[in-house]
């Protein structure tokens, strides 16, 4: 209606509209013209009569000139209702932009009908539904025609068929309008669950530490295994050994504790005798500074063994390799009380119990430990046998023993001494006995082979006259073949291994049996001898008379040189005293005379210096062994002059002794 209005108003300028000039009136048609409030109508658009001109009260009063003014009206196709200022947001320019062309279409009338175009889909569908009955009809009609015009009918049929096929084909097309879905469900198989459980593998938790030493241990084991494999490759493996080993491992656990138990025992002993151990190591008698020419002996451990109570110590020997180990031979000096004997080894580390002990049937009189092989011990018995014990072996019997067939002595064996290995690398030792024989024994495989070296006789030459009894002997430290033999008659013979028929020298030493004869450790010419005639004599083997004589007021059991000084020696007497002499300090008297045992009736039988430590061991006839520490005065060394360094060592000792001897010789020479 706006179009109509604008048509009305936009006429040419010539035409004027009646009723419009001068006054503006709004005329309403009965046709239902809508009010056009936007155009001109202002305020009250009251319906008015068309014909009567009533001037509304609020009409504008215009002048004549204004009334005659002509307004131009244009007829356009624009829709006056269309908005002219539609603004759309432009994302490109990001601002609101006015749209240039606005849709001017105005719909005046709209009616929905039910007509379909015959080519549209819906029409076709409807045709299809009605198509079959229609087609048949058409086919019937066409077949009638066919008879008349076969090719045309055929063509038409073909066309029809095509149409039918086409229609059929059209039927199959699925699209979103005529799509039909078909579904079918198969049978669901019932579900079954089957499971089985296996036994879990056995588990064990393992933890270990990896230290440096564990790695080292493993490497060691590997090496040992490899070595064993090598040995097995060389030798034929023995199955018996394996069985034997298995048996050992099954045996009682306590055997493995043996070594540890030993260590513990020593530790406990160390605790018990703690003060003694401290004294042994550190105690030095301070009062020696005030006593110039005297020394003392500090008692340390006392060794005793229950089963050896009634036996007397007949031999003592320090082990050269293990400086704390010493051997004690037990037997009896009494002719009437002969019985069993014992070989006992003690260590300073354990004074309560021996390390090794071997009971013997006959009393032991002497023993010697091999200097190179500290496990071999040679023993001489009262019944004349000699035996060799191997400490490494477990059994209590000796490894070798001489028997009456193999040349044992017929009288007690008083001294045995190891010698250096002979040319066949067999160990050998010498023994001296009261039957006058000095015999050399060689260890050949499993036997003792004896060789008589020399036979002693009362008169100088051998095999003349009644036999003398040898009671002690000693080999020279440096000169291997030279040795001394002391006899029961009091003579000392100097002999050589090479000469079996003659003595090199004979000394009229004592009035009674020579109990001990010992070469000096340093000076090659000096030796000492002691006897039950209460004297101790020092000799120079080139001189037939003794150099020094000492009277000790009691029968002297044993005498020993010290290993650290050529002028110090000690002697033990039957009244229980130990006498220590140092010729460098006092040439006439002992610098120490000390009773060592409690009861005065016990006789001291043997004495030995320890090769390393400043202690001596003393054996008595009750079976006890006492250890004593030498005070500093007894171990004195020559004083150093300021600025001079005195050379230590055997040369000094030799020189010392030589000096002493020369002093003595001079007066003799002067006398002579």
């Amino acid at each position, binding site marked *: 209606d706006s179009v109509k209005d604008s048509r009305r108003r936009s006429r040419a300028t010539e035409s004027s509209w009646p009723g419009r000039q001068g006054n503006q009136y709004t005329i309403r048609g009965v046709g239902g013209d809508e009010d056009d409030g936007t155009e001109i109508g202002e305020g009250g658009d009251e319906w008015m009569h068309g014909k009567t001109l009533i001037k509304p009260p609020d009409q504008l009063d215009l002048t004549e000139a204004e009334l005659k003014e002509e307004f131009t009206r244009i007829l356009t196709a624009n829709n006056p209702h269309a908005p002219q200022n539609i603004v759309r947001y432009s994302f490109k320019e990001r601002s609101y932009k006015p749209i240039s062309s606005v849709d001017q279409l105005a719909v005046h009338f709209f009616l929905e009908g039910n007509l379909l175009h015959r080519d549209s889909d819906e029409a076709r569908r409807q045709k299809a539904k009605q198509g079959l009955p229609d087609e048949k009809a058409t086919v019937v009609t066409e077949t009638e025609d066919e008879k008349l015009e076969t090719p045309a009918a055929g063509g038409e049929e073909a066309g029809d068929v095509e149409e039918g096929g086409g229609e059929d084909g059209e039927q199959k097309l699925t699209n979103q309008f005529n799509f039909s879905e078909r579904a079918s469900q198969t049978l669901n198989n019932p579900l079954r669950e089957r499971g089985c459980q296996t036994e879990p593998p056995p588990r064990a938790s393992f933890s270990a530490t990896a230290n440096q030493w564990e790695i080292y241990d493993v490497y060691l084991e590997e090496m040992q295994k490899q070595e064993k494999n090598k040995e097995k490759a060389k030798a034929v493996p023995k199955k018996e050994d394996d069985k034997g080993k298995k048996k050992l491992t099954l045996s009682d656990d306590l055997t493995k*504790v043996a070594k*540890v*138990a030993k260590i*513990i025992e020593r530790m406990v002993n160390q605790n018990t005798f703690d003060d003694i151990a401290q004294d042994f190591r550190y105690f030095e008698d301070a009062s020696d500074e005030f006593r110039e020419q005297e020394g003392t002996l500090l008692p340390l451990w006392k060794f005793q063994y229950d089963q050896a109570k009634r036996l007397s110590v007949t031999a003592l020997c320090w082990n050269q390799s293990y400086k704390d180990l010493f051997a004690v031979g037990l037997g009896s000096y009494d002719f009437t009380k002969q019985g069993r004997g014992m070989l006992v080894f003690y260590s300073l580390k354990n004074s309560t*119990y021996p390390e090794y002990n071997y009971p013997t049937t006959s009393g032991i009189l002497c023993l010697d430990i091999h200097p190179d092989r500290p496990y071999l011990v040679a023993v001489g018995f009262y019944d004349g046998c000699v035996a060799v014990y191997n400490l490494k072996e477990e059994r209590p019997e000796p490894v070798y023993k001489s028997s009456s067939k193999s040349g044992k002595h017929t009288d007690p064996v008083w001294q045995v001494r190891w010698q250096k290995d002979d040319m066949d690398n067999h160990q050998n030792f010498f023994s001296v006995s009261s039957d006058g024989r000095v015999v050399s024994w060689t260890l050949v495989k499993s036997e003792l082979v004896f060789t008589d070296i020399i036979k002693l006789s009362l008169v100088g030459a051998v095999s003349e006259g009644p036999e003398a009894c040898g009671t002690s002997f000693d080999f020279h430290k440096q000169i291997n073949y030279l040795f001394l033999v002391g006899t029961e008659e009091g003579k000392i013979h100097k002999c050589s291994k090479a000469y079996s028929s003659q003595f090199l020298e004979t000394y009229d030493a004592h009035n009674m049996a020579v109990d001990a004869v010992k070469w000096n450790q340093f000076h090659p010419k000096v030796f000492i001898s002691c006897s039950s005639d209460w004297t101790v004599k020092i000799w120079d083997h080139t001189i037939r008379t003794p150099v020094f004589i000492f009277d000790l007021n009691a029968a002297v059991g044993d005498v020993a040189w010290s290993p650290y000084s050529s002028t110090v020696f000690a002697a033990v007497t039957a009244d229980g005293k130990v006498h220590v002499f140092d010729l460098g300090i006092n040439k006439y008297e002992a610098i120490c005379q000390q009773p060592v045992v409690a009861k005065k009736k016990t006789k001291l039988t043997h004495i030995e210096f320890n090769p390393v430590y400043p202690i001596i061991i003393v054996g008595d006839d009750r079976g006890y062994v006492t250890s004593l520490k030498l005070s500093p005065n007894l171990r004195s060394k020559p004083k150093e002059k300021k600025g001079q360094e005195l050379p230590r060592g055997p040369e000094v000792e030799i020189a010392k002794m030589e000096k002493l001897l020369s002093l003595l010789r001079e007066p003799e020479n002067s006398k002579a």
Partner: protein
Amino acid sequence: MAEVEETLKRIQSQKGVQGIIIVNAEGIPIKTTLDNSSTVQYAGLIHQSVMKARSTVRDIDPQNDLTFLRIRSKKNEIMIAPDKDYFLIVIQNPSD
């Protein structure tokens, strides 16, 4: 076997010795002269101590090994001698 027994008897008869315990490598006491609770206590605690001490010694020099260990306290002294598979503990009161 009998020797070991004798040795242990001798140790026990030494003056001041309060007890002996033999412990195996796992720390379980196999022989003892003390009562059960003390034994178990000693064995457990000392086992650790010994392991630590041995580890220390061997870490410094793997060729070295612990010979024995003494723990001296005010009242007594505990001595331990370790072995490859066992160790022996002796408690002694040295001032007795």
